[in-house]
């Protein structure tokens, strides 16, 4: 193996966004003209707000290495991938790439609904940098992989979404780049499709090609990568063996928000007198988290205000899997004693907090929905997708076998093994 060869070398890489350009996006000519008349441009240039999405990033990836990248949303992971795949330019520093870069976030780029499957394969291949001869050589393979033989001369607008994705993925997967970039966060599609993406990724890695894998899924990072970069606020905090990096990431509260604060326009006017404020996921020391460990207990709290007193109010949560199946429902007045004590809730500010016990949830992504209602009288407020969080299986029962366990819950059960000799 050519392990000594460098595939990617990044040196002091930085990317600065002007808030004016990245947030407001495009402007009209009139705005620019009137601004340039009103103000002296030399001064505004200095004062303009800028954000370093990435700064002082230095690392190397050897050929054939699979490197994980973790960090919360907005940490700069996607910016890094965009720079390495030459979509956007760095503001400072330098990156050296040896070989063709392919990425699984480009799936379906340039697909046109009016064109047939056959035409889209040619076009998409060309956009991804394949030569015409190369596309022709791999054409049959791509069609077979996507299982769309029968529909190859049908416009893709008539494809089911599954077929569309399979075809798009097949083209990207047959690009055979020397360096593969995967942004799991951006990957679309159902669980089956994501599984296919991950499968393809480990194939690529086994063939000795270089992979850069960005994910929020800690168990996938653990399974697929040896080393991982931890990025936060545009800085490279740590490069370490993946288990160590994940430990660092989870224990330093670097996970993403884990909190939702409802904006005024998200609250329907008929919610009155119930006024939701925020929902949070906290670890047992009260720190807001978005990724919790399966083996640790954690808390979910809903903060709200009652403008008037409400009779028979119950505030609760739905826990829903990433695929939309209900895991459980629970209300703050489930317990009879609570129910009697809070039969009437006077106006004021409240927090309803529950504890999710250790060893309950399996690894994966879950959604919390919120419901505030009085049984058979009125529903004041409902937000089915208030918050998303991840459960990490590190140390969970059965982790000696690094396979994905089926099911939403992962209880630690007391097993007895009777021996009869």
């Amino acid at each position, binding site marked *: 193996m050519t392990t000594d060869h460098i595939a990617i070398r990044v040196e002091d890489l930085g990317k600065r966004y002007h808030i004016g350009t990245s947030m407001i996006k495009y402007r009209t000519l009139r705005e620019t003209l009137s601004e340039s008349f009103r103000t002296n441009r030399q001064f505004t240039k200095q004062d303009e707000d800028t954000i370093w999405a990435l700064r002082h990033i230095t690392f190397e990836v050897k050929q054939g290495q699979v490197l994980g990248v973790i960090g919360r949303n907005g940490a700069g992971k996607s910016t890094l991938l965009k720079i390495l795949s030459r*979509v956007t330019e760095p503001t400072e520093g330098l990156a050296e790439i040896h070989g063709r870069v392919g990425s699984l976030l480009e799936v379906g780029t340039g697909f046109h609904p009016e064109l047939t499957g056959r035409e889209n394969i040619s076009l998409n291949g060309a956009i991804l940098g394949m030569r015409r001869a190369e596309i022709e050589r791999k054409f049959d393979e791509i069609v077979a992989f996507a299982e769309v033989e029968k529909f190859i001369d049908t416009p893709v607008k008539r494809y089911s979404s599954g077929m569309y994705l399979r075809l798009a993925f097949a083209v990207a997967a047959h690009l055979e780049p020397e360096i593969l970039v995967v942004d799991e966060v951006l990957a679309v599609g159902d669980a089956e499709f994501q599984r296919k993406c991950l499968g393809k990724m480990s194939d690529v890695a086994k063939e000795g090609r270089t992979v850069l894998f960005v994910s929020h899924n800690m168990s996938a990072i653990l399974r697929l990568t040896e080393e991982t970069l931890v990025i936060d606020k545009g800085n490279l905090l740590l490069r370490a063996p993946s288990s160590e990096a994940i430990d660092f990431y989870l224990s330093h509260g670097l996970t993403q928000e884990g909190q939702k604060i409802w904006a005024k326009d998200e609250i329907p006017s008929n919610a009155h007198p119930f006024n939701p404020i925020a929902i949070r996921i906290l670890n047992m020391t009260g720190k807001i988290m978005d990724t919790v460990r399966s083996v640790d207990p954690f808390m979910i709290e809903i903060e709200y205000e009652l403008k008037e007193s409400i009779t028979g109010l119950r505030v609760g949560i739905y826990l829903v899997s990433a695929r939309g199946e209900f895991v459980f429902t629970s209300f703050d007045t489930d317990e009879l004693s609570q129910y009697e004590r809070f039969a009437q809730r006077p106006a004021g500010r409240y927090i309803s907090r529950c504890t999710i016990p250790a060893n309950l949830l399996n690894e994966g992504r879950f959604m919390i929905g919120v419901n505030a209602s009085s049984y058979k009288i009125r529903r004041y407020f409902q937000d089915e997708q208030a918050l998303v969080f991840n459960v990490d299986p590190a140390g969970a029962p059965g982790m000696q076998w690094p396979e994905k366990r089926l099911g939403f819950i992962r209880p630690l059960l007391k097993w007895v093994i009777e021996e009869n000799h």
Partner: protein
Amino acid sequence: MATKTESRAIIIRPSQGWAALNLKDLWVYRELVYFMTWRDLKVRYKQTLLGASWAILQPFLTMVVFSIFFGELAKVPSDNVPYPIFSYTALLPWILFSKALQDASKSLVSSSHMITKVYFPRIILPLASILAGLVDFIIAFLVLLGMMWYYRIVPTPNIWTLPLFILLALTTAIGVGLWLSALNVLYRDINYATHFITQFWLFITPIAYPASMVPEQWKLVYALNPMAGVVEGFRWALLGSSDPPGLTLGVSVVVALFLLISGLFYFKRMERLFADMV
């Protein structure tokens, strides 16, 4: 394998100021130019009711209207050529040019999903949309040959120069198209400006009237519009009705080259911002 990948090392670093033109990259991606042109054509004709006949209808109907109002009613002189042929010959390169401007100026914004996800030389997008117009041009040109047969007009021996005038029209279109497409990413009101520019440009180009109407002392100023040179060249090469190209054509070529080169550099300079702004 190691040596092969070694030779392909790509260095990514901030480009400074007026970046050097990376035309080598365009060569590497030359097949994409073909594919994007082909896509533009295919999609255009699949989504329209009349398909490729639009390529004929647009210049032909314009010619009919021009012939009635300018030729018959206003009695605009047409250098002793039947007015329909006189105007249709001019409308061909004009429609190639005006469509190119309109399609090119929209090309980047309408492909934003590609720009934000994959690297390829962005210049391919306006280029392909301009080249797609060439096919329309060829179809409409066949109609011109039919009309010339009908009016018993034999092309002059200078017809071999026609591709050069087409090239001049394309050079101008690419130059202006690059400016407009890049500006359109930064300022969305360029779209309105494009409509205005093409309308305005139509009047300063000798399409409905002969260039011979322009007073002699203004000829050189008039030639600053490269499309005037193109249209006059078309009439000279096909109908033999205009003056042979001279100093005015030279002025047109210089202006077209200036537009092309400045367009290339402006586009290149703005290219790095596209993914962040589009």
